[in-house]
Each structure stands twice: as structure tokens, then as C-alpha cells.
């Protein structure tokens, strides 16, 4: 078994229920192939940095997967066919990272627009970054 990370961006006009249904459908492909979804993250309806297939915003969903390659290959194949998915990225990782700062909720349903994420204490990285300076 190997560890993989998959992120996909769903079309902006999908509702939260649609996104959850889509994510469940894709997760089932992995579990059917004897794989395991270690964790799921939903990053909300984010503004895209540039337009992708005429979409200015998109629902970001991330899967942390522990599975054989065959299941991940099948997942990728299905993602390629699906017209609701405008962009995706899959790669192998050595270890799954913890919840990132982009994390909003586990499922799209629990996501509430305009919900203010609680600002945590400045992390170690932020403290280091404050000191980084170079002439450019």
C-alpha cells in the first residue's frame, strides 16, 4: 500500500449536496479497489487565481488516500471523464500532512459561506517568515 494525495476542483455552479455526492462517488471507487480514504478535506468555494474552463471559482476537495496504485489509477481515469471536475492533481506522498490552513470542513454540507475561520496563534512558519528578507 502506498500513500497518495488527490485534490480536485469542482465546477462553481454545483451545490454543496452535489459536491458531497460527487466526492462520495469518487471515494467509493477507491474503497471498492481495496483502498482506504484516510481523511477528506473541503476547502470551500474559493476564488481561482485564473479562469479554468470559464470558471472563476471552484469547490476544492482533497483526499488523503492509502491504497494500491490500481485504485488510484481508476480514480484518475474517472476524474478525467467527469465534466463537473475542472482540474485535478494526484501524487504520491511519503506521509500525509495534517490539516492545512486551507482546511474549512470535512464535507461541503458543513461549510457555511462567510464563516470566519478562527485565527490561530502565529505558527512557527510565520515567525520564521517574518524574519526572511533579501534584496530582490
Amino acid at each position, binding site marked *: 500500500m502506498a500513500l497518495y494525495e488527490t485534490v480536485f476542483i469542482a465546477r462553481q455552479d454545483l451545490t454543496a449536496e452535489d459536491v458531497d455526492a460527487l466526492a462520495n462517488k469518487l471515494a467509493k471507487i477507491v474503497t471498492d479497489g481495496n483502498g482506504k480514504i484516510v481523511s477528506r478535506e473541503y476547502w470551500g468555494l474559493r476564488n481561482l487565481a485564473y479562469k479554468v474552463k470559464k470558471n472563476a471559482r471552484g469547490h476544492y476537495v482533497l483526499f488523503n488516500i492509502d491504497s494500491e496504485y490500481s485504485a488510484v489509477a481508476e480514480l484518475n481515469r474517472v476524474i478525467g471523464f467527469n465534466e463537473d471536475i475542472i482540474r485535478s492533481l494526484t501524487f504520491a506522498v511519503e506521509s500525509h500532512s495534517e490539516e492545512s490552513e486551507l482546511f474549512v470542513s470535512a464535507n461541503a454540507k458543513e461549510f457555511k459561506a462567510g464563516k470566519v475561520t478562527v485565527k490561530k496563534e502565529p505558527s512557527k512558519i510565520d515567525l520564521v517568515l517574518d524574519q526572511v528578507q*533579501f*534584496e530582490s
Partner: protein
Amino acid sequence: MVAKVTKKNNKTSYTNENEGEEGYVKVSLVNQSVFIRKKKSCPLRDISIAEINYKNLRLLNKFLSERGKIIPSRITNVAVKKQKALANAIKRARHLALISPINKEVISN
């Protein structure tokens, strides 16, 4: 290695002491004192390679130019392995439309 060499007479060095100047080490020779630039260390020395990933947008943004290009390690002094990880992370973030390929601004909701 010697980037800036300042010759000083013995007389002037008493009145004009620049020992506290940042980034330079004062080396005393027989008749003159010379300032040698210290080698700058990697700004990411306290950050592990695992932490340099495409989700950490504030980190990536620090190493982009105004036009969204990756700043070379020649300027930033990032260690080779970390620069490679940084470049890969930036390319992944660009592919996922998390950062723009043409300017620096980070999009946040």
C-alpha cells in the same frame, strides 16, 4: 569570498569603529583591518522539507517576484534541497489555481 575590503589606517580605525556592522566580520591584519562578508545561511533552516508544501501559500508567496516568478536561490540563499521542494510546491499550487502564474497576489477567501 572577500566581497568588501576596507583598508584602514591605524589612526582612523580608532575613531571609526564599524565592528557592529551587520553581515561583516572584522579581521585584523598586521597593519590594516579588513571586513569580510559572512556567508549567509538558509532562511528556511528552521523549516522542514515536509512543511514546504503547496498548501502553505504564505510561505510560497515569500519566494515569488512581483511578476510571480520563482526567485533564484542565488538571491535568497535557500539550500538546494529546499529550493527544489519550494519550486515543486509553487508549480503544484499554480496548477491548482491557488497562486497566479503572472503576479504575486495570493487569493484568499
